[in-house]
């Protein structure tokens, strides 16, 4: 294996990891505020299809990403209204959002099916990435850097700002937070909308970086892997980064294993199922450690109704 190939693999791992990382970062903030939104996959699909539509119509990548974030965030408001204002069951409502996103994206995406989407390139001048070693640093699409920045931003927000402290307080003890005078429901609405926007940008990664076209169910369950990753990371942004790149590695490994005769010992279907099986395995491993069980926000998934 030569250096060129190793670098090509590293670049593709970063690309595969980025959508999971973005979606998981959004969900991490949502869950820190005490809300479990299982609609990530649906919001990602909405983001993906909007990205395809806007890119094919205007050719403007940035506009497409912004529209994807707005559309997905808007869809998360349906979830927010039901679970926060009407205190509906969060698990079921999240599932409904995924079903809606799947249906909407399939309907809306139909005119754009199998049209080739122009992919997004590295923001740096190509001379910088000419040398293979430098390509590891400068050769990624902008969303890869954005995701890395967001890891730091989310960590800083949750641990170093007053607003972040309020989000965590609302997620750990909604009744106390309410009695001190923090707007529990308002904070949760903002967190849910942030989670939606991040899932939308995560969805934008698929047509712009990974598979440059629209097909139904383009995100193939990556939203669910993002949800698993939040548990895996014990609700910590930097561990999320490590986890996302590990899953990126698994996905690229699958493609590599399928094309390499050394891995033919096991059928190709096994390698295709591996990211999902690995998710289960990782969830088991993480629960073996005591902190994995206790680090979940105390109010996660429980509805809050203000009294008095």
């Amino acid at each position, binding site marked *: 294996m030569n250096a060129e190939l190793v670098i090509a693999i590293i670049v593709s791992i970063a690309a595969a990891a980025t959508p999971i990382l973005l979606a998981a970062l959004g969900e991490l903030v949502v869950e820190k505020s005490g809300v479990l939104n*299982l609609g990530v996959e649906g919001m990602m699909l909405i983001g993906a299809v909007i990205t395809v539509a806007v890119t094919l119509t205007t050719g403007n990548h940035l506009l497409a990403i912004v529209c994807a974030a707005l559309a997905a965030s808007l869809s998360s408001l*349906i979830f927010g209204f*039901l679970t926060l204002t*009407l*205190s*509906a*069951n969060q*698990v*079921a*409502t999240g*599932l*409904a*959002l995924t*079903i*809606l996103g*799947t*249906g*909407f*994206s*399939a*309907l809306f995406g*139909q005119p754009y099916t199998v049209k080739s989407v122009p992919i997004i390139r590295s923001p740096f001048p190509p001379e910088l990435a000419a040398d293979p070693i430098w390509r590891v640093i400068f050769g990624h699409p902008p969303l890869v850097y954005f995701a890395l920045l967001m890891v730091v931003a989310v960590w800083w927000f949750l641990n170093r700002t007053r607003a972040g402290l309020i989000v965590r307080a609302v997620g750990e003890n909604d009744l106390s937070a309410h009695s001190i005078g923090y707007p529990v429901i308002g904070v949760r609405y903002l967190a849910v909308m942030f989670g939606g926007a991040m899932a939308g940008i995560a969805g934008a990664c698929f047509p712009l970086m990974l598979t440059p076209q629209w097909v*139904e169910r383009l995100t193939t*369950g990556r939203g*669910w892997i993002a*949800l*698993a990753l939040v*548990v895996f990371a014990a609700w910590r942004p930097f561990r999320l980064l490590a986890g996302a790149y590990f899953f990126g590695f698994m996905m690229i490994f699958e493609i590599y294993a399928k094309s390499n005769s050394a891995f033919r010992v096991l*059928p190709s*279907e*096994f390698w*295709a*199922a591996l990211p*999902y*099986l690995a*998710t*289960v395995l990782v*969830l*088991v491993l993480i*629960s*073996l450690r005591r902190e994995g*069980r206790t680090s979940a926000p105390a109010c996660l998934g429980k509805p809050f*109704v203000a009294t008095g």
Partner: protein
Amino acid sequence: MQLRLEKRPEPSKVLRVVTPIGAVLLTMVLGAIIFTALGYDGVGAVREIFVSPLVNSYKWQDLAVKAAPLIIIAVGLAISYRANVWNIGAEGQYIVGAIAGTGIGILTNDMTGWWIMPAMMIAGAAGGAAYAAVPAFLKVRFSVNEILTTLMLSYASVYLLNYLLAGPYKSPTSMGQPQTALFSADQSLPYLIPGTIVQLNVPIAIVVALAVWLLFSRFVFGFQIRVVGAAPHAARYGGFSANRTVWMAMLISGGLAGFAGILEAMGPVGRLILQFPANYGFTAIIVAFLGRLHPLGAILAGIMIAITAVGGEMAQIGIKLPFAAVGIFQAMMLFLILASDVLVRYRVKAVRPGEVAA
């Protein structure tokens, strides 16, 4: 003026029954408006999806065939969700159930006898239950979240099916097609009414729903599942084991999903093919909620969702509406039924600003 929620001492029984009907009607109204806004023939879409399957009597058999697996799976999911066990991987248990039952089918393909069909059905239910036992074990032993594990395993089950159809299960006479041999006469569900496509799976679905309803309203276990789901702390004081509830909920819901899977293979499909997974496992989640997590509600909700599925196919041909539109209607129904829950549990009171609520 401000709206305020006030908890009812007892959830309203009348509204529990009335709200699902309201949710369906409201879906039709909102759906017509939204699809018109999206540039489709909104009223036509609602007419095709919700009304056409009912007024065309030759479509009724399609409804029965589509509703049967939905009802069987949804009955199991209803039990599971009532116990607060979130099995959302029924699709995987459905596939693995069909795989297990078909395994018996392949072994007995040349044999005859009345025992073959029940053997396949038992293997199907056992296969689904076994596949659900993995998340159950992981939850009880390692407290791993069952939502994620059941879902991951259902993604993996599709690859297991693809693998088996490409190799071990492939019929020698299929000329390279990834499919099993057709089931023999002793392996196929008999037709209920000659000249229709209605097979034995339709009455079985009704019997399953009725049997589960009787079991749950009469015996201690049903009470236990409801208590554990509604009030876990009280259940612990009452001596009910939370672990046993997880096991029962997962095995019953997985077993019924597997049972539905093998019935589908022995009935309408007639063999295992790559297109076997038809999303029944996921759609049944909507059915379970629309039926208010009640076995009898599941029958009505199963028929309702089958109407939208058959209607969606008709709208595809009739008014060229993409089939994906059905998913949007189904999601809207689920959203509205969940939203209407608030009316069942709370009274909505109008309060003037400044006025202190009692």
